[in-house]
Every structure is written in structure tokens, then in C-alpha cells.
């Protein structure tokens, strides 16, 4: 009887350990689920849906040449394990709901994610930049940007160099966005 109790206790402990381990692993997973946004494709006037896994990144690296621009790109993507982008642009305002945004934000509220930038504006929309770190290394990046007519989720898995990635704008055929600079408010 005692041995039966002991065995069941061991089994429960093992199961708890496995569940806890799985939960921790899930919590530490830098991959953001964005499939819940797929319904917006029908409403969007412009959709970008990019899923590049490690194998494709490695294949592309082999395919990139040795020109200075391509070397910069190689430098940024080297060692990354995945790049996932989902972006929807709409003709009209109000085509996506707060629930759509919340489905992403709820994942980013996980303690493994650190919010490094979060700018909210009723006029200009909001931008949030989140990082997941593992010891001294970045293991994931998430950017959630939205305004009245757009929602964009960028999710990069691996040790990404933010500075290099930001500096890519305007290079290698990557045009400067020319993002509208709002006139400063008069105080």
C-alpha cells in the first residue's frame, strides 16, 4: 500500500515536472502566433504575410552575393532562426478591432518579453517594440504597430542586432519610408 502511494506520488511529481517544463518552454518561445489575424485578409486592401524559417534563411544567405549591401543583409540575418511578418492595410478605418490587437498583445504580456518601446497616440497610432532575452543574448524581437488603417506584426526569432536592422532602412533597395512627420503641437 505504501509502495503504491509512493509510486503514485512519484508519477504526479513527474507529470507536474513535465507540465511545468512544457509551460516554461512555451513561455520562453519567442514565436508569436498570428493566425488569428488571418480573417483580416479579406478586408485588407494590402496584405503582407511572410514566413521565413531557419532553413530558408540559410538558403538565402548562400544565395546572397558579396556586394557591400548584401554583406550588410547577411550580417543582419546571420544566426536568425525565423522571420515572420504579417501586415494588413485597409482602405477604411475601423476594419480591425481591439480584440485583434489584444490577441497579439496578450502574448507579449508574457514575462519573458520586455517592452522596450511603447508609443501610443490616438492620432498616429501605436508602436510597441518587445525583446525576449536569454542570458545576455536576444532570443526574439516583436514589433506591433497599428494605426487606424494598418496593423503590422513583425516577429524575428534569434539574436537580432537591432541597430543594424534599423540602419537597413534606405539601403539595398529598402526605401526610406518617408513616414509623415507630424507638425509639432503648439504648447
Amino acid at each position, binding site marked *: 500500500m505504501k509502495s503504491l502511494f509512493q509510486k503514485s506520488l512519484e508519477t504526479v511529481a513527474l507529470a507536474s515536472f513535465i507540465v511545468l517544463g512544457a509551460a516554461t518552454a512555451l513561455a520562453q518561445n519567442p514565436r508569436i502566433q498570428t493566425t488569428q489575424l488571418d480573417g483580416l485578409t479579406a478586408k485588407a486592401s494590402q496584405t*503582407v504575410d511572410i514566413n521565413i524559417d531557419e532553413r530558408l534563411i540559410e538558403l538565402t544567405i548562400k544565395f546572397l552575393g558579396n556586394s557591400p549591401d548584401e554583406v550588410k543583409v547577411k550580417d543582419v540575418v546571420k544566426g536568425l532562426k525565423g522571420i515572420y511578418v504579417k501586415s494588413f492595410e485597409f*482602405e477604411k478605418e475601423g476594419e480591425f478591432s481591439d480584440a485583434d490587437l489584444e490577441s497579439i498583445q496578450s502574448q507579449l504580456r508574457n514575462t519573458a518579453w520586455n517592452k522596450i518601446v511603447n508609443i501610443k497616440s490616438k492620432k498616429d497610432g501605436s508602436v510597441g517594440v518587445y525583446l525576449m532575452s536569454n542570458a545576455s543574448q536576444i532570443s526574439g524581437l516583436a514589433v506591433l504597430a497599428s494605426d487606424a488603417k494598418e496593423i503590422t506584426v513583425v516577429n524575428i526569432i534569434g539574436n537580432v542586432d537591432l541597430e543594424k536592422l534599423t540602419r537597413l532602412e534606405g539601403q539595398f533597395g529598402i526605401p526610406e519610408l518617408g513616414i509623415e512627420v507630424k507638425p509639432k503641437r503648439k504648447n
Partner: protein
Amino acid sequence: MMNNNDDYLWDKTGEPDPEIQELEQVLGTLRYQPRSLEIPEGIAPSQKRALLPRFLAIAATMAVMLLGAGLWLSLHRRQGNEVSKVPNKATTSGAEKAAVVVPDIGSDDSAPVSPRIEVAAKPNRHRINHAAVSHEFANNRRPRVKTPDFDASERNEAMAAKEQLMLALRVASSKLSLAQRKAQEINSENQIHNQHKIG
């Protein structure tokens, strides 16, 4: 002549007709006479000339066969060496396995994958023209691409992946820049606001 000599004319059974006999003699010289073919001396091929190409053909065939055998042997040896280099136990992490399963770029395996980008003209907004950028990459970058040891399907996949990658990097860098600019804007606004307060 036509009545009595008709049989002679047709089957030589009737009374012989001298005119017909004369004609027979005249035309008989032109009758077909079988004889063996006589090739003129100058045209006839000599035995020595005929032998040379035959030997050459045999030698060439043997050389090709030897070359083929040599190639096959060397290839076989190389494959054997490569197999012997493979470790007994392959180790792959779970992440790598997942990475192999993940790709969901398009659904048709036979066609080269390409990013799903739906574009609509929006001239009034300062947005990214995805199609133009993609087109730019297609025009400007493809000829400069070096293709080391890629077969056609891999090259197509790599080209599609490259375009996707560039688009993804562009979106990512633009959004990060946007965040950076907005943060800087807020900082400068706060500084101006504080200066006014102090003043």
C-alpha cells in the same frame, strides 16, 4: 499479215512473219543480259583504307569505355568515402526539426514559392509600395546573384525566399525606425516643454 501471223506475234505458234522476225533480230540486241557488276579500277576502295577507320572506331570505343569505367570507379570511391564520414548518430535539436516543418510559403510544392502580397493602389498615403520594391529586387538583384551549386528548384526557392526576406527586413526596419523616430520626437517635445516651464 494480221490474220494468219497473229499467233506468231503473240506466242510464236503460228506461221513466222519475216517482218516480225527482222524486228526480233534488230531489237534482240537490246534485250536484257544479266552480268556481274564491274566496278572501275579507280573507284574501287582499297583494302588498306577500309581497315584504318575500323581500327580507329574500335580504339575510340575502347577509350570511351575505359574513360567511363574510370569515372564510375572514382565516383564510387568518393561516395564510399562520404558515406564513411557520416557519423553513426545524427543529432538534431527540436528547434531544427520544427524549422524544417514550419515553411508555409504557398501551398503548391511544384511551383516556386513566392510571398503572398496583395497590392492596391493607395496614392494618398505615404505607404510602402510592396509591389514596386519587389519588382525592384526582381530587376536589380537577380542578374547579380551568384548561384553556387544550386539546382533549378533550389534557385527558385532561394530567389523567392530572398525577395521575402528583403520585404520582411524592409518592414521590420521601417517599423523600428518609426518607433525610434517617435521616441525621439517625444523626447524633444518633452525637452522643449521643460525649457518653457523653466523659462
